[in-house]
């Protein structure tokens, strides 16, 4: 099949076939003549006029591992203004676009430089046969983030890439002395800075005690996987996934997301963790899937294969097999569930839990939410051990004339909650309804599903539901009249905070819903609790239909928001902050205490002791609580929080066009000493006190003795 390449050259065009690219010139009489044929995939650039009647353009094609760059004149094919061959250092894929620019050299001839955009969305500037600079602009289109721990420090193995011998250390020391004496030149200063960065604590490549150094594995839209170090953001390794590159089999492969696959705990010293990248071969939901496992320490692809079914859902299960691989369930477009890894051991582990695993699907266009259970085998011709059929358990149909689903949110699977009881004023207890099987759904009336202001307040309403996804039970429903989306929501522990627009008040609003378990509220007998005769720790089933109560409150909020997330810590003890990505591309951290449905205008004394803030109608935006300080995360799209090992700290990664990473301590660092704690002073004080005790003891003994002799 022949395709004409788009170009803006006068009198010349290119035709691309599967084997070669042919250049055909068009003469003024309308005659076509084949000028040249190049056997490699070629790309042509824009036309650049270098003098009154001359136009130049660039041709780029790939050799074995390098790029051939030719700059030719449009009307004179055989004259080469420039012919260069540039070596690429890493796998960047094919060239996608070329742009040329010229400059005038000292001897009045023209030099050319070319800016090329590669398949992995990186930019390279080629000049004089070299890559002058390169830029990983694929990082501007991140679609999925996973984390990985760094290797444990091994005895006797030097992890630092450069081992400084004595001479190097001496040289470095001399440079530092020169710098402090202000005798260093600009190069010396740069060298000193480089040394400082290399040896600083935060960019080491081993695990640290507090869990601050991690690897962020990000998947970009171009199918390239990057590993970013949380200490200084450097790219540790990057990999252009071959399975996600365009081939004849897969015309338009896209990555879906990256998941954690193997997280070795027991074998942390010998096995490397790996991540799973799930992609699909085309853009429809019935395109076949692609799997790829990547080792996170080396950045190499361990295995990749195409699936024989489509991918509609990826459900990570809370089960692991003996090699510490996490089991995943993939639901295809026909509703069949496939278990990965395809191993008999995984099947036996899964069969034990089969009856307790459910999944639900949200179909926004039909206004349906369906819950499914799993059957023990597939309905198919080929017997497949790893395929499981599904049966419908419940369904909720939303009336399509008045409700259209716009947003759903659930709790994060790896969230840790510390206690199930919330102690309120006067030492009273309320039991939180903590269930990971809840779904928050927001629907608007179809007329109001467009932009803000496209409907009148009278005909728009926002209805929110809290649904139990195992039984299909609607636990709570609330209607906001005169409000519309877009709705951004976050669900954590037993509360949901969501943001929407109130047309009547012409303001954005945020509402909090807290869910409490009423069926446990009778557990107030102290004796029973002391003796342990309560059932508060026994496993809970959704089929027991516990009675729940909810409390909710709404507040005005001035900003429109792009993304919302909540901080998460290792044990869930630290109080939570909501991270709100505002329309101004900044991240605001608001304490959860502002979103407390028990706030009242005049709090009682005991409520004040508990820490409940008095109720105000709008949420205060404190300028100091912007996490991004004075910076903007351009084009903010998502916020991801990762717990650190130290309980008081959490790591926040924001991505969009820019990337931003920081470490937050929502309740301030209550579990570690400040960095400038003077251990020397403490030691001196202790020694001085011991000496003083000894001296005074001796003196008092002497005094007693002399008194007895009087």
């Amino acid at each position, binding site marked *: 099949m022949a395709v004409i390449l788009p170009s803006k050259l006068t009198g010349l065009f290119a035709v691309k076939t599967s084997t070669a690219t042919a250049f055909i010139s068009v003469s003024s009489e309308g005659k076509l003549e084949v000028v040249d044929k190049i056997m490699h995939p070629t790309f042509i650039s824009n036309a650049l006029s270098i003098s009154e009647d001359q136009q130049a353009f660039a041709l780029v094609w790939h050799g074995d591992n390098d790029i051939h760059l030719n700059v030719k004149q449009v009307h004179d094919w055989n004259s080469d203004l420039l012919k260069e061959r540039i070596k690429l250092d890493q796998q960047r894929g094919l060239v996608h676009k070329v742009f040329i620019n010229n400059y005038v050299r000292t001897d009045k001839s023209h030099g050319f430089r070319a800016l090329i955009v590669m398949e992995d969305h990186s930019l390279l500037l080629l000049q004089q046969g070299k890559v002058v600079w390169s830029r990983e602009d694929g990082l501007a289109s991140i679609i999925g983030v996973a984390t990985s721990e760094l290797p444990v420090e091994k005895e006797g193995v030097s992890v630092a890439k450069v081992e400084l011998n004595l001479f190097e250390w001496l040289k470095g020391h001399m440079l530092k002395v020169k710098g402090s004496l202000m005798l260093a030149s600009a190069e010396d200063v740069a060298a000193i800075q480089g040394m400082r960065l290399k040896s600083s604590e935060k960019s080491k490549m081993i695990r640290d005690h507090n869990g601050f150094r991690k690897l962020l594995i990000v998947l970009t839209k171009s199918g390239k996987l990057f590993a970013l170090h949380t200490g200084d953001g450097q790219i540790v390794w990057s990999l252009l996934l071959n399975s996600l590159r365009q081939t004849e089999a897969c015309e338009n492969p896209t990555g*879906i997301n990256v998941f954690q696959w193997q997280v070795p705990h027991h074998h942390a010293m010998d096995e490397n963790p790996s991540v799973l990248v799930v992609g699909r071969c085309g853009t429809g939901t019935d395109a076949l899937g692609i799997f790829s496992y990547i080792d996170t320490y080396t950045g190499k692809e361990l295995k990749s294969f195409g699936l024989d079914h489509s991918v509609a859902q990826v459900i990570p299960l809370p089960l692991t097999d003996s090699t510490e691989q996490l089991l995943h369930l993939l639901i295809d477009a026909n509703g069949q569930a496939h278990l990965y890894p395809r191993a008999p051991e995984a099947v036996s582990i899964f069969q034990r839990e089969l009856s307790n695993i459910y999944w639900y*699907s949200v179909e926004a266009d039909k206004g349906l939410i369906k819950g499914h259970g799993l059957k023990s085998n597939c309905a198919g011709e080929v017997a497949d051990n790893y395929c499981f059929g599904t049966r419908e358990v419940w369904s909720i149909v939303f009336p399509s004339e008045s409700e259209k689903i716009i947003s*759903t949110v659930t709790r994060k699977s790896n969230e840790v909650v510390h206690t199930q009881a919330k102690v309120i004023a006067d030492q009273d207890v309320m039991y939180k309804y903590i269930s990971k099987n809840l779904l928050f759904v927001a629907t608007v009336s179809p007329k109001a599903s467009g932009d803000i202001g496209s409907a009148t307040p009278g005909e728009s309403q926002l209805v929110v539901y809290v649904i139990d*996804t195992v039984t299909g039970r609607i636990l709570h429903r609330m209607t906001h009249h005169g409000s519309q989306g877009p709705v951004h929501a976050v669900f954590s522990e037993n509360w949901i905070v969501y943001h929407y627009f109130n047309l009547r008040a012409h303001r954005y609003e945020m509402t909090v819903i807290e869910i409490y378990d009423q069926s446990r509220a009778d557990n107030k007998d102290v004796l029973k609790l002391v003796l342990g005769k309560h059932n508060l720790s026994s496993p809970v089933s959704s089929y027991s239909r516990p009675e729940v109560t909810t409390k909710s409150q709404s507040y005005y909020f001035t900003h429109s928001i792009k993304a919302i997330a909540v901080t998460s810590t290792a044990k869930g003890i630290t109080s939570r902050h909501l991270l709100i990505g505002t329309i101004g591309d900044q991240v605001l951290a608001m304490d959860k205490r502002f979103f407390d449905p028990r706030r009242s205008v005049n709090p009682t004394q005991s409520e004040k002791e508990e820490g409940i803030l008095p109720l105000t109608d709008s949420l205060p935006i404190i300028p100091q609580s912007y996490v991004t300080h004075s910076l903007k995360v351009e084009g903010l799209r998502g916020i991801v929080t990762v717990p650190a090992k130290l309980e008081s700290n959490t790591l926040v990664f924001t991505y969009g066009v820019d990337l931003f990473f920081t470490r937050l301590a929502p309740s301030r660092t209550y579990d570690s000493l400040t960095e400038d704690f003077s251990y020397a002073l403490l030691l001196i004080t202790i020694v001085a006190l011991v000496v003083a005790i000894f001296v005074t003891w001796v003196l008092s003994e002497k005094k007693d003795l002399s008194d007895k002799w009087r």
Partner: protein
Amino acid sequence: MDKGKAVMGSGRRWAVDFTDNSTLPSSRDIPDPPGFSRASQEQDDSAVAKQKKDAEANWKAQKAWEVAQAPFKNLLMMGFMMWMAGNTVHLFSIGITFSALWQPIGALQGVGKVFEPYKDSKVDLLVPKLVFIALNLGGLALGIWKLNTLGLLPTHASDWVSSLPPAKEVEYSRGGFPLL
């Protein structure tokens, strides 16, 4: 003067020793004043001793009762100080409460030592001891009650429940919008 006995050995010729324990009026150096009779000293030895012992026993019993009731005043004073300390957890209130707890314990440990000087075969020390112990236990109870008012004792449901981890869920359900 002449009849006064000179105390030998001390070198004082004019010291007169007036103690005269002889019983017969005639053998005395200094005659008794007229109308004085020494009949009270002429009682039976055992009676004298018995009376002395009785007096001692009574005195001891009285003292024992006083000692037994001493903690009561202490109790009142402690109660007043605790009321002054207030309901908040501060240095003063903690200090008062713990001293109110420690004093009765110390006193209870030294019950025997307290009643040691009044030990007597004729005196029944059991009841005063019991009263002493009871009053000290009352002081201890007052200290514990104060501790409770400060909120430091785990007597409420919230103290036992706030350490319970969330219950595990039997079912597992996930899903959502079809992935784009």
